[in-house]
């Protein structure tokens, strides 16, 4: 696990920044305002969302907004496990956390490529 730290640390830092800057707006607009009917029906219609997401800038933003926070999440959950349960299971649990983040990152790239 120690050998992974130099790779994971920048992804973790970027994930905190990207997630912190983008997730509150996403949660506020897409998951709260839209279902509560605050927005117009067209704001997040399939056609508009697809046009936004498939733009080159949209693809980069979306890939970053999915992948980096997963690494931040993995690092936090790994350290939460160490804090609450000790270091004994870190070898497999830490590997599992990073494997989930890696799988999610690969899927994120695939998702924006197939738009």
């Amino acid at each position: 696990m120690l050998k992974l730290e130099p790779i994971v640390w920048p992804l973790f830092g970027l994930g905190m920044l990207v997630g912190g800057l983008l997730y509150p707006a996403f949660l506020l607009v897409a998951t709260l305002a839209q279902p509560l009917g605050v927005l117009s029906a067209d704001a997040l219609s399939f056609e508009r969302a697809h046009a936004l997401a498939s733009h080159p800038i949209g693809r980069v933003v979306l890939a970053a907004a999915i992948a980096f926070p997963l690494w931040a999440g993995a690092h936090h959950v790994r350290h939460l496990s160490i804090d609450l349960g000790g270091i004994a299971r870190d070898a497999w649990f830490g590997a599992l956390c990073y494997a989930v983040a890696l799988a999610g990152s690969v899927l994120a790239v695939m998702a924006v490529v197939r738009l």
Partner: protein
Amino acid sequence: MRARVDAMKSSRPPRTRTADPTPPPNFWRRGNYLPYIAFGSCGLLLFAVGFGLLRLVWTLGSGDPAAWNAIFESYGHPLYLAFHAFALVALTWFTFRFFRLFPKTQPPKLGPLPRPPDSVFLLGLGGAFFVATTLASLVLGGALP
């Protein structure tokens, strides 16, 4: 040539073994540990929101408007609304706690310049949060093309 991490490790167990370090029971309820543990727990929310966003983008790529609309209809369920409201509050708190911690992670010198005061970092990061949140909300909300 670099030394191995375990280069100084004894070849055999020492005479007196100490137990692995473990925190005292219920340590997380004491002092500042509770916000520290809550901050770490926000990693679970980052996982949840990240995979939720992945699901949305994957559905967009499938080219099925009905599936897209079904996701947003499901977001109207009270449990989803409660979870998303909680995630919004928790991740906003998480972000500003991260902003407060960020200056402490910076070296005393940034290139040739001394590290600016913490308030400069806080202002910059807070400003970035305000701009990013406003811009993303306007774009997602349909006010900007």
